[in-house]
């Protein structure tokens, strides 16, 4: 690795800029009363969800989460426009390990089960739809790495799951407009805090989000690991 005069000069300028910015940022004080303390006050009565972060993501800012899922969908759509289709593509990298090839059949259901556990306990413990969806996608990544070209995704099931979960998310919002006159509001019985069936509409939203995220990240992994004309 060689250092040119240009890179040393740029590093020096960036360092001076950062040190000047630091002097401003180190003087910030913490605000004691914020929107967060208000949310914590009303969370126990309005959602009955044990995890306040989950209730902010899916209930107080549920519309924002819909936009976030849309951005994820649009980026995957753009990637699939640019790269070619999934036919006649081969892995660019795989582990040629027979032990892993046998063990992955046992590991795959366990990782998926762990992801499902993270998803359905999203309103009780740390975790939720996005995290559990990525865990399920990591199980598919392990299958791609271990089984190389023997493993193929069923694309019609993947597309069906992805589109149905997105439609279900919007259907929940429209239903709550019809019933209680608020988009993505809570029209189900709230239950008791700390139980699995509590939080009203929050676990349902997270289940839809998790199906969408896991399908999208799985197809993303396939787009990046399989390329044409490589064998």
């Amino acid at each position, binding site marked *: 690795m060689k250092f040119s005069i*240009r*890179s040393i000069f*740029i*590093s020096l300028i*960036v*360092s001076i800029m*950062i040190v000047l*910015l*630091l002097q401003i*940022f*180190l003087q*910030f004080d*913490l605000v004691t009363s*914020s*929107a*967060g*303390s208000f*949310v*914590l*006050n009303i*969370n*126990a009565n309005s959602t009955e969800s*044990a*995890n*306040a*972060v989950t*209730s*902010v*993501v899916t209930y107080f*800012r549920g519309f*924002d*989460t819909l936009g*976030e899922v849309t*951005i*994820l969908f*649009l*980026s*995957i759509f*753009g*990637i699939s426009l*640019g*790269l070619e289709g999934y036919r006649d593509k081969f892995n660019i990298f795989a582990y040629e390990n027979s032990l892993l090839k046998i063990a992955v059949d046992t590991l795959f259901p366990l990782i998926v089960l762990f992801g499902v556990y993270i998803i359905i306990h999203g309103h009780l*413990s*740390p975790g*939720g739809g*996005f995290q559990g969806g990525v865990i399920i996608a990591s199980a598919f990544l392990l299958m791609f790495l271990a089984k190389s070209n023997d493993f193929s995704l069923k694309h019609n099931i993947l597309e069906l799951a992805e589109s149905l979960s997105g439609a279900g998310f919007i259907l929940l919002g429209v239903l709550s407009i019809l019933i209680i006159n608020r988009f993505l509001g809570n029209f189900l019985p709230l239950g008791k*805090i*700390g139980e699995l069936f509590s939080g009203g509409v929050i676990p349902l939203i997270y289940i839809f989000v998790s199906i969408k*995220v896991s399908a999208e990240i799985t197809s*993303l992994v396939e*787009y*990046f690991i399989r390329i044409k004309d490589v064998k």
Partner: protein
Amino acid sequence: MLNSLNQTPFLHGVITIGSFIILMIGLIGVLTKRNLFKIFLSFAIIETSLFLYFIGMHFEVGKTSPIVSSGVKTFSPNMTDPIPQAMILTTIVIGIAVLSLGLSFIINYFKLTNNMRVDEMNELGEAK
């Protein structure tokens, strides 16, 4: 001695300086590297520093996570702010989406031109 280090202003200073060092690493990577792939990964490093700063500055010593569990029975002001954590959750997902879209653009550009270096781009026909 360790108790004097476990104070909120000291930890905020450590988090600020640490996240700015990561920001510096990412900025230097963006400005000095010529490989498109490395430039985009440097953007990902800059994002990480922002996540660390945003979450870390809303942490205070003695506060619990905003989750009711067996130890903590009710929601109280003695919990950390849940809103920055929820916003960073949103930001991480959007960061993944944008980074993967950018990387796919780079792959397509490499397939079309067989070039991945910024200083050798000449698609608009400028004089060399």
